[in-house]
C-alpha cells in the first residue's frame, strides 16, 4: 500500500485527473470507483456535488467514451464530472497521526460568555452531537473553538472548519497555525497549494468540501446563515458528505434564520448563546428615524433633510460613518448628493473593481463616509464608526442583514459604543425583528452578568 496515495486519497472523492499520475496505482485494492453521474427515477444526480437540478445537466458527444455523455454544470468549475468520469475514493485505513500531547498553545483568556459556549462545544465534540453557537457580532467566535478543537486533536480526530469565503480562510489559517503550532493545518480554497497533504485540521471554503467524503469527525460551519450556504442545497449536502457518519457538527452564526430560531425555542435544536461582546459592553440598539419618501427624494437628486443633517453632524465631528443603501443603482444616484457634503465621500459595491482599495482608504481613515450596499454587512471591522441604513424598510434588509449591519458599531474595546440609525419611510417587520433581536440579546447578557453597568 502506497502511503503517499493513502495520504492523498483518504477522505476524498476526486476525479482521476486530479490525482498525480505517479501516485495512481491501478492495482491498489483500496481505491474505490463510483459513477460520477447517476440516474435515479429518471433524474440525473451528480455524485460529487449532489446536484439534482435537471437544468444544470448537459450532454456532449464525448471523444473519450464515444457516446453522448451527460455532465454536471453545477460544479464544472472544479473539473467536469460526467457519466464517463468515475470519482475515486479510498476504502483503506486512514493515515496514522501520532496524537499530540498539548496541541493548543494559547495564553489568552475567554470572557465568561465565551467560556460557557466553549464548554458546550467541547461537550458536543465529546458526544459527537450537533450544536448551534449563536453568538452576537463581536463576541469572539474563533476563540470559542480552541478548546473543542484541542480536545479533538488530542484524541486523534480530524477537524474541518468550513466558511463561505476565501478571505476568511486566508484570515483564519495563520491564526490557527499560531495556536496549534504542532498540528498539520491545510488552508483549502480554489487554487490553493495545500491540497496534497493530509492535514488533521482543514480550513476550507464550503465549496471545496465537494472534494471530501467521510473525512471529518468534527465539522465546524461558519456563518451558516450567509449566502450562498442557505440558498444552495448542494453546499449543505457537501457538509453532510464530508463529515463521517458519526461526527460532531458545530454551526456558528450571529443571525440564525427564523426556522432555526424557532427550533431553538421549542427545544428541537441544541444551542448555546453568547449574548454579549468580549468587551462587556451592550450591543448598540438601532434607533428608527422617519425620513419621508427617501426613494423619491434621491430620484429627484435631493437627500432627505433628516439624513443630510445626520450626516453633516458626523462630518463636523469627524466621526467615520458607514451608510448602507438598498441597491447599486440607488447608491450611484445618491453618491454625488453625499459628495456635495464632502468631496472625499466614496461608494463601494460587490462588483466594484476598486473595492479593496476603497475599504483600505476607509481603514486608513482617509474616507470620512463610505456608502455601501450590503456587501460590507459582515466580516469588516472599522474601530470607531457610526452606521446608517437608508431605506431600512427595503426588502433587501432582512432581520439578519440589519442585525449584522448593526453589529458593525462599537466592536473594539477602545471604542465600544456608537450610533446605529435606521432611516425609513414606514417600519418593516424585519426592522422591528432586528431591533428586538438586539434588545433581547442585551437583556439576556445582563441577566447572565455578561455586561457591566
Amino acid at each position, binding site marked *: 500500500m502506497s502511503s503517499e496515495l493513502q495520504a492523498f486519497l483518504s477522505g476524498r472523492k476526486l476525479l482521476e485527473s486530479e490525482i498525480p499520475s505517479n501516485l495512481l496505482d491501478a492495482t491498489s485494492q483500496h481505491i474505490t470507483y463510483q459513477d460520477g453521474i447517476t440516474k435515479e427515477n429518471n433524474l440525473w444526480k451528480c455524485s460529487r456535488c449532489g446536484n439534482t437540478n435537471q437544468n444544470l445537466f448537459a450532454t456532449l458527444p*464525448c471523444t473519450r467514451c464515444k457516446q453522448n455523455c451527460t455532465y454536471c454544470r453545477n460544479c*464544472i468549475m472544479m473539473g467536469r464530472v460526467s457519466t464517463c468520469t468515475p470519482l475515486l475514493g479510498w476504502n483503506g485505513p486512514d493515515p496514522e497521526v501520532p496524537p499530540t500531547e498539548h496541541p493548543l498553545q494559547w495564553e489568552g483568556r475567554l470572557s465568561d460568555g465565551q467560556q460557557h459556549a466553549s464548554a458546550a462545544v467541547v461537550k458536543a465534540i465529546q458526544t459527537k452531537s450537533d450544536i448551534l453557537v449563536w453568538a452576537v457580532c463581536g463576541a469572539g467566535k474563533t476563540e470559542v473553538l480552541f478548546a473543542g478543537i484541542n480536545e479533538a486533536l488530542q484524541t486523534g480526530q480530524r477537524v474541518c472548519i468550513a466558511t463561505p469565503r476565501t478571505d476568511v480562510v486566508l484570515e483564519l489559517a495563520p491564526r490557527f497555525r499560531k495556536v496549534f503550532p504542532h498540528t498539520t493545518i491545510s488552508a483549502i480554497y480554489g487554487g490553493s497549494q495545500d491540497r496534497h497533504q493530509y492535514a488533521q485540521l482543514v480550513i476550507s471554503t464550503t465549496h471545496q468540501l465537494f472534494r471530501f467524503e467521510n473525512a471529518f469527525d468534527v465539522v465546524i460551519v461558519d456563518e451558516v446563515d450567509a449566502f450562498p450556504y442557505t440558498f444552495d442545497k448542494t453546499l449543505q449536502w457537501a457538509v453532510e458528505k464530508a463529515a463521517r457518519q458519526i461526527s460532531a457538527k458545530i454551526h456558528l452564526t450571529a443571525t440564525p434564520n427564523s426556522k432555526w430560531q424557532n427550533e431553538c425555542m421549542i427545544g428541537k435544536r441544541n444551542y448555546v448563546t453568547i449574548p454579549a461582546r468580549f468587551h462587556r459592553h451592550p450591543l448598540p440598539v438601532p434607533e428608527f428615524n422617519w425620513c419621508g419618501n427617501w426613494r423619491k427624494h434621491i430620484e429627484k437628486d435631493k437627500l432627505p433633510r433628516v439624513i443630510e443633517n445626520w450626516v453633516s453632524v458626523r462630518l463636523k465631528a469627524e466621526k467615520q460613518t458607514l451608510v448602507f443603501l438598498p441597491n447599486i443603482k440607488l447608491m450611484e444616484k445618491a453618491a454625488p448628493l453625499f459628495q456635495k457634503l464632502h468631496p472625499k465621500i466614496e461608494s463601494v459595491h460587490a462588483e466594484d473593481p476598486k473595492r479593496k482599495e476603497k475599504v483600505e482608504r476607509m481603514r486608513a481613515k482617509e474616507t470620512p463616509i463610505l456608502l455601501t450596499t450590503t456587501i460590507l454587512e459582515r466580516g469588516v471591522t472599522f474601530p470607531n464608526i457610526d452606521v446608517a441604513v437608508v431605506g431600512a424598510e427595503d426588502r433587501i434588509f432582512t432581520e439578519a442583514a440589519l442585525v449584522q449591519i448593526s453589529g458593525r458599531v462599537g466592536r473594539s474595546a477602545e471604542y465600544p459604543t456608537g450610533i446605529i440609525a435606521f432611516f425609513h419611510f414606514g417600519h418593516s417587520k424585519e426592522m422591528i425583528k432586528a431591533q428586538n433581536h438586539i434588545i433581547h440579546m442585551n437583556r439576556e447578557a445582563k441577566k447572565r452578568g455578561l455586561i457591566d453597568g
Partner: protein
Amino acid sequence: MVEYCLLCNIYIVPRISWSFFFFQHEEELLCDDCRKKLTKISGKTCEKCGRPLVKLATEYIQNNICLDCIRWEQDEQWSGILEKNISIYEYNDFFKDVLSQFKFRGDYILAEIFAQEIRKTTKLIKYDLIVPIPLSQERLLERGFNQAEALILAAGSQPYHALTRVHSEKQSKKSRKERIHIENVFQVAEPVHGKAILLIDDIYTTGSTIRHAAKTLKMAGAKSVVSFTVARG
C-alpha cells in the same frame, strides 16, 4: 425550452409580444444582463482580420488594414494565404471567462450561445467546405470535444475534418514571435483541391494558428480560405 440563463442560471422572463405568437422566434439562452456583457464588434474593422480599428492608434492602420496584417501580407510566404477573417465578439474579460468555461472547463453546451450569430454570419460567406481547426489527439481526449467542431455543430452545419494536428505545447503559453515561427503543426487528412474553405475557430489572437492552417490547405490545392472566429483577441 430553456428557461434559465446558461451563464448565471437566473430565470429568464420570456418577452411576450404579438410576434411571439405569430412568428418563429429564437430561444433565449441568456438573460439580458449576460447578453449585454458580450460585446459585439462594431464600427470600422480591419478589412483583413476583422479587428476593431477604433481602439487602434492611427500609425498602426494603413488603408483600413492593421499593421499586423500588413506584416503578414508583405511576407511572400504568407501573402494571399488568408482571404480574410471575420469575428463577432470583442475578447473582453467577460468573454474570456465564458470561453474558459466552455473550452477549458469543458462546458460543451455553451457553444449554443453563439449558434445564432454563427449561422447569421456564415450565411453571408460563400464556401464549399466548413473546416474546424483541429485539436491534437491528446488534447481531444483530455477535453472530450473539439471546441471549433462544437461551434459548427451548434450552428447546425456538418464539419469537414480536412485537417489533423500534431501534439505540441499549448498556444496560449507562447509569445507572438514563438507562435509565428513555429513549425507547421497541421496536416491534410481529406481532399480539399479546388474548394473554397471556411475555417472555424473560437478565437483569433495573433492569427498564427489560422494562417498556418490556411497555408496547409492552400498547399493541398484549396482554392481559397476565409476564416471565422467567435472572438477577436
